[in-house]
């Protein structure tokens, strides 16, 4: 898969439910449609919660990668 260039990066390392989802939602508000948001999370619950948020809000989860304790999400704004 080709490299994805993020327009914005949101680091939620160390934060727990529900903060990663709430901060993702807030970060997307300031972005343009089609732009990519990279979210870095350490909360294992975000593996289920961020995809659920994307599914529900219609933003596309382009890619999810686990890197050790970190989970990286690439979300394309609706």
């Amino acid at each position, binding site marked *: 898969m080709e490299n994805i260039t993020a327009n914005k990066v949101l680091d939620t390392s160390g*934060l727990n*439910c*529900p903060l990663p989802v709430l901060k993702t939602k807030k970060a997307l508000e300031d972005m343009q449609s089609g732009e990519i948001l990279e979210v870095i999370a350490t909360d294992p619950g975000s593996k289920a919660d961020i995809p659920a948020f994307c599914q529900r*809000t219609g933003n596309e989860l382009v890619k999810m990668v686990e890197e050790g304790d970190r989970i990286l999400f690439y979300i394309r704004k609706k």
Partner: protein
Amino acid sequence: MSKERLAIIASKGTLDMAYPPLIIGSTAASLGVDTAIFFTFYGLNIVHKEKMHNLKLAPLGNPAMPMSFPPSVEKSFPPVKVIESIFPGPPQIMGIIPGMTDFMTSMMKKTMKDKGVASIPELIELCKEAGVKLIPCQMTMEVFGYKYEDLIDGLEPPGGAATLIDYVTQAEKPMMLFI
């Protein structure tokens, strides 16, 4: 007409029970569900200017309490491991020791902070930012003698059961949650 509306009734005023309505409410609003939280009975303390900072965790009368001490306590005071091997957590009887409630409360606050969980005042702000309607119960205000000025800023006007039922039934998919 709103498609989905969620009404959460926050009826408990202990630290542990203040979390679920605020977490679910802020998340629901972020996911596009119109959300209101109705603060009634002891739950009203969650939006009281002073009391919201002093919500306690009571070890007594809390049957779900048995849990181990946090690793930080086990490390700094190893004898708790012996206590844990006999009782699966702080035993109920410890609740009668003066200061025990404050101790349990500060331990929970520390654990929550260490785990990156937002505090109650932070969650209230997140709810407001997400557009959650925070409704104080008029009847409880009368019973407790709280004035509207005693409560935090940014609340809806005080309302009653009818206010809440009317709010939620205006949606195609009404949802209610009692906590």
